[in-house]
């Protein structure tokens, strides 16, 4: 570890923060552009103009947009995401409980999908061109092509309706024993694993195969190394950068892109909260959710960049 690496990493984190600022502006601007007057909508058709004006003032809607943006930004810096329009609860509190659920689902899915995808990717690279490789590659392409609502619906149809092994809804059943919890999470996790592993398998396989072409891997072969040693000791350490980046991209999907899965299994996560917020025109909640998704995405990508920097011995030494 030296100052060059530290400055590179600091640079990456700086870029992430700037990106976050730009995104917050875009999110605010986008919600601003939604048609309709919030106060009017909240009070309904029968509201008197005085009541609407009063509410507008109370909600600071009469201030210019840029002032409201700065206020919102300042609040965010203190962890205050504002209050929901619909039920007056703090947005941070609303998101907080849901975020825990989403993180739980994401963590379990990652714990299943990452090892599966890594080992399948590496194994297909080791046995490149074999029947196993072709079978996995065909399957992966198939899975990429099938939309997730299809996978989710099929899973419900097979496991919940026909076989009756698993509950169709993730929550609502009993969560007394570990077995119940496992049953509750099984279907969303299976569906999401299908969705996120496909890319990871393909990228891992491609990155490993690319490094397998390097002369130092042939050198390892000519030293008498076995195929697995060539892949694990020589190719893999040099393929970490692209693999970690592919993983970060796939996993970031778990934080914000799981709307369909959460909806189908009526799983109480952040994505579902955001969908509900859109339906009720709850602007602070939409903004909060969007910022959370962006933060998660940037966090993962920055981690991947840092890992790629650290895995390069030219930068480390």
């Amino acid at each position, binding site marked *: 570890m030296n100052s060059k690496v530290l400055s590179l990493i600091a640079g990456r984190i700086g870029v992430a923060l700037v990106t976050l600022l730009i995104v917050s502006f875009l999110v605010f601007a986008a919600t601003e552009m939604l048609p309709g007057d919030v106060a009017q909508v909240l009070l309904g058709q029968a509201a008197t103009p005085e009541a609407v004006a009063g509410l507008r003032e109370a909600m600071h809607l009469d201030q210019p947009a840029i002032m409201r943006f700065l206020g919102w930004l300042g609040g965010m810096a203190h962890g205050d995401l504002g209050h929901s329009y619909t039920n007056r609860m703090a947005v941070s509190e609303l998101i907080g409980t849901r975020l825990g659920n989403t993180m739980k689902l994401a963590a379990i899915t990652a714990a299943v999908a990452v090892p599966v995808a890594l080992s399948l990717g590496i194994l297909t690279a080791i046995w490149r061109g074999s029947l196993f490789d072709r079978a996995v590659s065909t399957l992966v392409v198939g899975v990429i092509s099938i939309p997730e609502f299809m996978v989710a619906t099929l899973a419900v149809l097979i496991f919940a309706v026909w076989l009756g092994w698993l509950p169709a809804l993730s929550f609502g059943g009993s969560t007394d024993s570990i077995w119940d919890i496992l049953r509750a999470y099984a279907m969303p996790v299976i569906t999401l694993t299908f969705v996120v592993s496909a890319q990871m398998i393909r990228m891992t396989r491609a990155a490993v195969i690319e490094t397998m072409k*390097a*002369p*130092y891997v*042939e*050198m*390892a*072969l*000519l*030293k*008498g*190394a*076995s195929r697995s*040693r060539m892949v694990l*000791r*020589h190719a893999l*350490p*040099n393929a970490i950068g692209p693999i970690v980046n592919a993983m970060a991209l796939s996993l970031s999907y778990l934080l914000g892109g799981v709307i369909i899965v959460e909806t189908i299994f009526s799983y109480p996560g952040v994505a579902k909260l955001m969908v509900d917020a859109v339906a009720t025109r709850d602007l602070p909640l939409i903004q909060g959710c969007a910022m959370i998704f962006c933060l998660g995405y940037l966090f993962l990508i920055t981690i991947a960049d840092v890992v790629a920097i650290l*895995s*390069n*011995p*030219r930068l480390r*030494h």
Partner: protein
Amino acid sequence: MNLAEIRDLHLGAVTDSGRKVEIIKGVSLDIAPGEIVALIGESGSGKTTIALSLMGHVRQGCHFESGSVTVDGTDMVTANETARARMRGTTVAYVPQSAAAGFNPAKKLMDQVVEVAKIHSLMPLDQARAKAVDIFRALALPDPENIGDRYPHQVSGGQLQRLAAAMALIGDPKLVIFDEPTTALDVTTQIEVLRAFKSVMKNGGMAGVYVSHDLAVVAQIADRIIVLKGGEIQEQGSATQILEAAGHPYTRSLLSAFKPDARVARAQDVDQLGGIVLAADQITAGYGPVDRHGRPHKIALHQVSCNLERGRNLGVIGESGSGKSTLARCMAGLLPPVSGTVSLGGNDLAPQVQRRSKEELRRLQIVFQLADTALNPAQSIGDSIGRPLRFYHCMKGGAYDARIAELLDMVRLPGAMRHRLPGELSGGQKQRVNLARALAANPEVILCDEITSALDTVVAAAVIDLLKELQRDLNLSYVFISHDLSTVEAICDDVMVMHHGRVVETLPAAGLHQAARDPYSKLLFASVPKLDIGWLDRLTQDPDFTAAMAAR
């Protein structure tokens, strides 16, 4: 009893277009224990393929067809992959062409050197490390105790090549394959590496296969030389036999290409015009971010001046990092210098190529080292050559077609080649097309940046001859940049020696060795291998001085 025997070996390959070709056509050879055999030939002669077959390895796309390769009693062709792997590193070991690519960038050198001992469980790791340090010492590597803790990018090219040899020697192999191990090195470094290889091989009593295209290098290290062409053995014999009494015409052409008949008497009447056509005055240039004083991070040229007289040729010679290509880029306007000027026919040129006039551009052309990358792979040869015709001379129609045919004829290529794509041509043909493209502009000066470096000896000699002929016919002047002394001597009138971005001295090409005054140019000239078997052993050089020169 021979250590290794190859009998009637046939190897096939499938080309990208799916066509099957035979790349090794019935080769038989023997290697006795302790004997060093050189495989020599140009690219595509199958020398590396044969060497790798001794390890039971064929590269992607190739396959064994028939014949046998017996090493220490095992037939590497029929053995299964496990049996082959057991032999690799312990019985037969390999030193790659480019150690820089052969070492894994992500692992420490020591871990890679002792890996053979680890894979084959030859000895405990501590013992292997101690042995590696002994080998480092025998190979004259600096700081043998600690050099293994570094990563490949932290040591120099010459050191890396010796570390690659250490990696091969750790398993006490009976046969070591050296695959062009010094081709990528500078001549002054090459000597140290060759010496180290030779003494280790001699002391260890190991047999070796030395793959190379350079007869002079091979003459220093090999007991026996096998000359290959097109996957067949042309001639074999002891090193003395091959060098002094070569029977086969191909061997003789290799030998004569190595010793280009020094400077065909170029008629002196060409330079009747006289005068300086191209001059560089106090050029300082570099790369990287520019600081407050307008100086780049890394200075590659320090106040370099030189003159090229009309009808004469200036050779620029130096090792990698000497700044010779940077000088060409400054002259061509591709890299604007920090200070100093370039003038053509007495008029100063703008530093940037964009600001030079069409006429100035036309008069000064450049030909690059890698013919492959300099030609657009999607454009036919005719279009590539025709572009300057349209740009500089606004030619079209019949005159355009006739001129392309004429240019192809000038560089001794058939006229029908204009419809081909660069990918269908050989390296030498591509370099001729590059030359034709430069000639299309009707230039006065051509900058030749290492144009023969990527070519085989015989092909390079033909390109040099062509350059001389063209000069006679078209009244050209060349700036000829190269790291190879013999090609520079063959074509230039004056030779400028460069080192670490500075001009060491400028000498007349005839009698370089006698005229050299500066210790660096003396060292450089003395380091060029000679076609003489005892040259390396007789050569006396102070290693400290060599190291100091490299670090200066």
